[in-house]
């Protein structure tokens, strides 16, 4: 019985020893693999970094300076102490089938007012421009340009209205101050 116990303990010892031996080569094998991985991954990253770094350097080095110079060059359009006056002239025509000259004038004035508002919106807010050309067999079939503007205009004043030869012209002004845009 005692010999058998000793034998079992010996067998266990040898088994553990064998496992350790098996484990050891794995451990020794893994580092090279890991090393290989660590070699390849850093290589990639370094390449990336080497490509990125100059960009970053350019961005951090030159762009702000350029922007700074641009900001220095551009004068402020709307200053705090001086309001800005924008003046536009809108045009409109009366419809063909009007019952009286007065109606024609009123309708033309309405159209001219809308045109003046559009011009103010375009000046203050800007215009979205979209173009599309269709070319078939080396020829331009259709050329389309779309411009659009959307804005809200408040406190615009009609300065002068003229109506001559069916054309109504409305002169409109708006005063922009810094306080109007301050949040």
């Amino acid at each position, binding site marked *: 019985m005692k010999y058998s116990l000793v034998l079992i303990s010996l067998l266990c010892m040898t088994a553990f020893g064998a496992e350790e031996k098996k484990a050891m080569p794995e451990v020794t094998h893994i580092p090279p693999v890991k090393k290989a991985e660590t070699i390849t991954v850093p290589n990639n990253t370094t390449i990336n970094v080497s490509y990125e770094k100059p960009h970053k350097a350019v961005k951090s080095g030159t762009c702000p300076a350029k922007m700074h110079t641009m900001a220095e060059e551009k004068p402020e359009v709307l200053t705090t102490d001086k309001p800005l006056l924008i003046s536009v002239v809108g045009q409109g025509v009366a419809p063909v089938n009007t019952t009286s000259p007065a109606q024609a004038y009123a309708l033309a004035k309405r159209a*001219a007012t809308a045109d003046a508002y559009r011009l103010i919106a375009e000046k203050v807010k800007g215009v979205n421009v979209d173009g599309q050309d269709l070319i078939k067999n080396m020829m331009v079939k259709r050329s389309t340009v*779309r411009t*659009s*503007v959307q804005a809200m205009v408040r406190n615009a004043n009609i300065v002068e209205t003229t109506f001559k030869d069916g054309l109504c012209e409305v002169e409109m002004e708006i005063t922009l101050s810094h306080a109007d845009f301050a949040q």
Partner: protein
Amino acid sequence: MRSRDGNHSFTRRLCTVIFLFSSLALNAGEYLVSYKYIVKNATLYNESLDISKSMTECEGTPSQTIIFPSPHEDNFKKLVEQHKEEFIEYIHKLGIDIQNQDTTTNNQMNSTTVLTLKTTCFKVDFNDTFVKISHLKQPQN
């Protein structure tokens, strides 16, 4: 000062003040107004001015006021019809939304401009000789 026959003089004065105020503002109401017109190729295409009495109380403070001389008028729609040009100019100044689209296809241009006043509440006070219209400015959140 309390009189010998009770507080009659004070009551009389109070009633007079209330009567004067009530006579000054004969009738007051809140109205919802929306306005829209479309201009196509520099010609007025469609115009609509909608006025309705507000069914619920409007929130806001009276901000921009316009006064129309109009004796014994208590109909807001009729009043606006009488002073349409001035009223439209007034609502233009309150702030109008502009949407413009120009399309140029093969050098032929089409233009559409839509001007809209979103539904806005106005407080209207009808008095003996004039009507006071105030825009109810909604509180900003």
